[in-house]
């Protein structure tokens, strides 16, 4: 036994392409996930640029409506399944074993597979854009009958791509659960787990619960379209509204899959730069669990205008509003952590504070959308677009940026270019609000989403939104520059990069050695 351990501790990373193709190392796989996610973020962002360029002026000028629809659809799919989810999985791969004192993920070979099928899924999805008839154009929600009766045959590629993405996330989730349950260092009891680990554990259960339902939904779309079943076709005894029920049974927990790890990141960063313990650790754990449980009983708030009976609308309205209670607990805990702390405004903290403020704005517009009678006005307008971009861009994406800046010195061994990073932060902060805040107003005034043209009275606001969009898009190239420079070199980072940071990951040198915690650390 000791001989094997000995051999492993001297073992360094193999070189070349094969290192990355055959790697079972959690740090390598984490890096692959994060770089993949960054690539997808840029591709999905480029599609958003096409959308904003078309909407810069009223009328149709750059792209035809069918291509516009493909852009909105694939932008959504890529950002959800290609950018945000793999980024969190990458962070989980890198950080969870180091945070709980484990030598690696529990199932390293499955880990390799769960990453390497992902590029194929997105290659299939992106390839379908170049085929005759184009790629999916029915919105990322692929409502039947848009995706069944009115779609082209390339829908099969979309279905196949979603299946692969789903399998990848399920394998990743299983790995996270087995790692956390079985590989915690001795003495690491449940209530000593870092919050990022807790939120990911709960997220992983959500993934296992709902990704198979998404797989079921796309399978039904596939058989309806190609094999003559009628799950969603009224003429054959099915029901198109049932599609929305099945989709949102997946879809609502999915939005928490994209935000719970963000809560974990913010709960890690805020105490580190406030130089205080996180306020209300236990309540954070319970709040995360309650959000996850409640997420299964609110799905039909996406469907208030489908002609649901009053009893259903009331139930889903109140259940939705109930979610703001545990979410509020979290926000207040973060603020209480900062209260009278010795705060310093390093780049990760700047992103974390921006997250708290802007995510809360997104939360409030969500609360407005939850009010059934009001939702009839907001439904399918830019108000909804503003809402979910506040929670997903200034929420999830900002938390990923915060995490990247927080752990980048640990990953690369170099401090990043702080000046450039601060420039990235301030440009992103201003432009993201120029981009998304006016959407609230055009939405309330009645501008529908997913339409390539609009009434003249929305022209000025849309020009402003587009300018904000281009600025935000270009600012992200600064992030790429910061990451590139940081990998290439820079000031040597110490093992404990941030003086207020706590956790096992800071007890190993920077960059983190290829193998860490081959012998479990002691937890006091």
């Amino acid at each position: 036994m000791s001989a094997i351990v000995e051999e492993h501790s001297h073992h360094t990373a193999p070189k070349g392409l094969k290192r990355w193709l055959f790697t079972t190392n959690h740090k390598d796989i984490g890096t692959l996930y994060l770089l993949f996610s960054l690539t997808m973020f840029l591709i999905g962002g480029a599609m958003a640029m096409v959308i904003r360029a078309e909407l810069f002026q009223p009328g149709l000028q750059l792209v035809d409506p069918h291509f516009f629809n493909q852009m909105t659809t694939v932008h959504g799919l890529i950002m959800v399944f290609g950018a945000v989810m793999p980024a969190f999985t990458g962070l989980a791969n890198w950080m969870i074993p180091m945070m709980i004192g484990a030598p690696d993920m529990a199932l390293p070979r499955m880990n390799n597979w769960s990453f390497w099928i992902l590029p194929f899924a997105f290659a299939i999805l992106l390839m379908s854009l170049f085929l005759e008839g184009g790629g999916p154009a029915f919105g990322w929600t692929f409502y039947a009958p848009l995706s069944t009766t009115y779609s082209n045959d390339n829908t099969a590629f979309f279905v196949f791509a979603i299946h692969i993405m789903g399998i990848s996330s399920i394998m990743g989730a299983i790995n996270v659960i087995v790692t956390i349950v079985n590989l915690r260092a001795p003495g690491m009891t449940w209530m000593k787990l870092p919050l990022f680990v807790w939120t990911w554990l709960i997220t992983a259960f959500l993934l296992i619960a709902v990704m198979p339902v998404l797989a079921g939904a796309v399978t039904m779309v596939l058989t309806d379209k190609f094999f003559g079943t009628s799950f969603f076709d009224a003429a054959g005894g099915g029901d198109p509204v049932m599609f929305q029920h099945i989709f949102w049974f997946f879809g609502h927990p999915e939005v928490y899959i994209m935000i719970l790890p963000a809560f974990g990141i913010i709960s890690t960063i805020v105490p580190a730069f406030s130089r205080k313990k996180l306020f209300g650790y236990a309540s954070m754990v319970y709040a995360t669990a309650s959000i996850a449980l409640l997420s299964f009983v609110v799905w039909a708030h996406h469907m208030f205008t489908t002609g649901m009976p009053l009893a259903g609308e009331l139930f889903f309205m109140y259940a939705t509003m109930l979610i703001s209670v545990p979410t509020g607990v979290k926000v207040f805990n973060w603020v209480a952590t900062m209260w009278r702390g010795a705060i310093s405004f390093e780049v990760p903290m700047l992103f974390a504070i921006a997250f708290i403020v802007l995510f809360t704005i997104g939360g409030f517009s969500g609360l407005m959308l939850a009010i059934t009678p009001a939702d009839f006005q907001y439904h399918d307008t830019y108000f909804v677009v503003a809402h979910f971009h506040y929670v997903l861009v200034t929420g999830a994406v900002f938390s990923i940026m915060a995490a990247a800046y927080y752990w980048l010195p640990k990953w690369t061994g170099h401090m990043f270019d702080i000046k450039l990073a601060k420039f990235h932060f301030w440009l992103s902060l201003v432009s993201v609000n120029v981009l998304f805040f006016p959407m609230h107003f055009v939405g309330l005034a009645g501008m529908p989403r997913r339409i390539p043209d609009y009434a003249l009275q929305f022209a000025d606001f849309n020009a402003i939104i587009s300018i904000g969009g281009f600025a935000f898009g270009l600012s992200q190239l600064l992030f790429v520059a910061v990451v590139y420079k940081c990998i290439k070199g820079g000031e040597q980072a110490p093992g404990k990069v941030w003086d207020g940071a706590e956790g096992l990951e800071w007890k190993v040198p920077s960059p983190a050695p290829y193998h860490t915690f081959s012998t479990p650390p002691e937890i006091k």
Partner: protein
Amino acid sequence: MQHGRLLKKLILLTLGMFAFAFALVPLYDVFCDVTGLNGKPSMEVAKQSESIAQSRQVDVSFTTHSQSQAPFKVDAVEHSVSVQPGKLTDVKFIAKNLSGSERVLQAIPSVSPGKAAKYLHKMACFCFDQQPMKGKEEVEFVLRFYVDTELPSDVEELTLSYTLFDITERVSKQDSDRLSMLAAREEFKYEP
């Protein structure tokens, strides 16, 4: 292996949730049936009412519309009737195939307000069957229905809406199989 048991449970959970997605299909119908939500009326032949509420009148209107250019026109001869709950009423519909070729019509009923759906009983309806129609053919359909005496008192009028689907392609796909099956069964009789 120490991870084997947990791994097995998690894989089972995954497969279980995949099966659950398909179980949602019948569950959805059962849920709508039990709660009477969704405005989906029954597609079965109803039994005759035992009593008639003499003192009450309910307005029943009829609308039809074609789904995605289905080449049919179906119109109720009387667009609205006033009925006593429990009393059988016949309403004539004139259906026309607007295309020049043989098409198969399927009408799907829906009742508004949704909560009244389970109180509208149909004893004969063209929506119970697929209706093959020759090119330009005009047919008369009869709907025989009554409104349940239990209909909540706050419902004073209800609308029965038919969505018309052209299912020719779906049927022709299954037809070749069915015809060969029918030919094999000699006792087959056509009952209009």
